[in-house]
């Protein structure tokens, strides 16, 4: 989706807001919001790509006016309402109208360390041969789906070179719709001049990880 989140290459945001000796969380609510977002995954009702997809559905005005942690907690509420875990009315009131149907199933504090360190693997077996190999020149598609994609606007319709092969991975575009449809994944390097024309740095490049359906032979 061509939302506000896809900001690579935009102008006008000014200098980088560097803060010295920055704390992990600036206020306790940021830490609590972040922790609840992680705990939300323990309910196994949605995945990371579905969460990203929620972030992409903010209006540009909302996206820019909310801080990172505000976006996180807003998207959590959005997902939880969609999954039927809570209702919009309950969020408005800030109290439960009824207990959860399945009763208490919350993760306890003692289980947190193991929960955070549970290995997650996006690699999947496939019988399909990769269409490309390291060294190949490819061109990215110009598709502009309304749904979730991890091909940013700035890298569409551009020629790049495959520099890494990451195996067959869960496809983000499908995962956002709760399917896996695994695809070969490649690191693709684009010269800055290819991306930005004469304004590109002559000695720079950007490498993106791109799923096979984003790529075509040149």
């Amino acid at each position, binding site marked *: 989706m061509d939302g506000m989140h896809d900001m*690579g290459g935009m102008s006008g*945001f000014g200098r980088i807001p560097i803060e010295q000796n920055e704390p992990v*969380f600036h206020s306790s609510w940021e830490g609590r919001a972040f922790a609840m977002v992680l705990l939300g995954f323990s309910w196994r009702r949605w995945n990371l790509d579905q969460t990203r997809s929620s972030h992409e559905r903010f209006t540009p005005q909302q996206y820019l006016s909310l801080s990172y942690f505000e976006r996180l907690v807003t998207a959590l509420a959005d997902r939880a309402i969609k999954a039927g*875990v809570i209702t919009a009315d309950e969020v408005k009131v800030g109290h*439960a109208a009824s207990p959860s149907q399945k009763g208490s199933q*919350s993760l*306890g504090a003692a289980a947190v360390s193991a929960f955070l360190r*549970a290995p*997650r693997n996006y690699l999947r077996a496939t019988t399909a041969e990769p269409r490309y190999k390291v060294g190949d020149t490819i061109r990215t598609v110009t598709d502009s789906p309304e749904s979730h994609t991890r091909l940013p606007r700035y890298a569409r319709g551009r020629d790049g070179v495959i520099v890494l092969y990451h195996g067959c991975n869960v496809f983000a575009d499908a995962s956002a719709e709760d399917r896996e449809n695994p695809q070969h994944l490649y690191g693709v390097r684009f010269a800055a001049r290819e991306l930005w024309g004469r304004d590109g740095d002559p000695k*720079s490049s950007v490498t993106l990880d791109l799923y096979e359906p984003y790529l075509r032979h040149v």
Partner: protein
Amino acid sequence: MHVHDHSPGGGSASHSLLPSEPALRVKAIETLLVEKGLIDSAAVDAIVDQFENKIGPKIGAGIVAKAWTDPGFKQALLEDAAKVLADLGISGLGAEQVIAVENTETIHNVVVCTLCSCYPWAILGLPPGWYKSDAYRSRVVREPRKVLAEFGLELPEEIEIRVWDSTSEMRYLVLPRRPKGSDRLNETQLAALVTRDCMIGTALPRL
């Protein structure tokens, strides 16, 4: 309109006497989820503690220092960082997808996630505010040399800059060059030179 108030309850400004609006909303959501039996507030505390005190850039710095002192480890890290992390007992939070990219005399690497704010949490903890900022996400892919200069990192024009945009679940760790004159330092002393920004690529380790 959101006001950035970084000192709720702690500052002297009058607006800090009341919780900021997001603080109220987050509290309401936590209350709701606890009442629903979906969340245990002690688990929330435990996650905050993990990210404030346990999971952070010291993990990555230890890995970099080990790579500087042990050529076999460095080679293994560059060939398959995910396996090296697994052997070290580091798992979850993206550890399974980490790739190490090495700075050399002629190449400098820098990492971003333009679409959200993907970051190697397992080894660097949570990203700093600037990494998540609109300015960094929009600009570093387009004018990396200028962006790095804003961090005080002025790279000569002949240095090739490789920007890595984390568009999948792969996570990138920059392996910086060991600073000249650090021969006498042991692994622990070397690790102290490796800041978070060195491993994102917006700084170089300094003695």
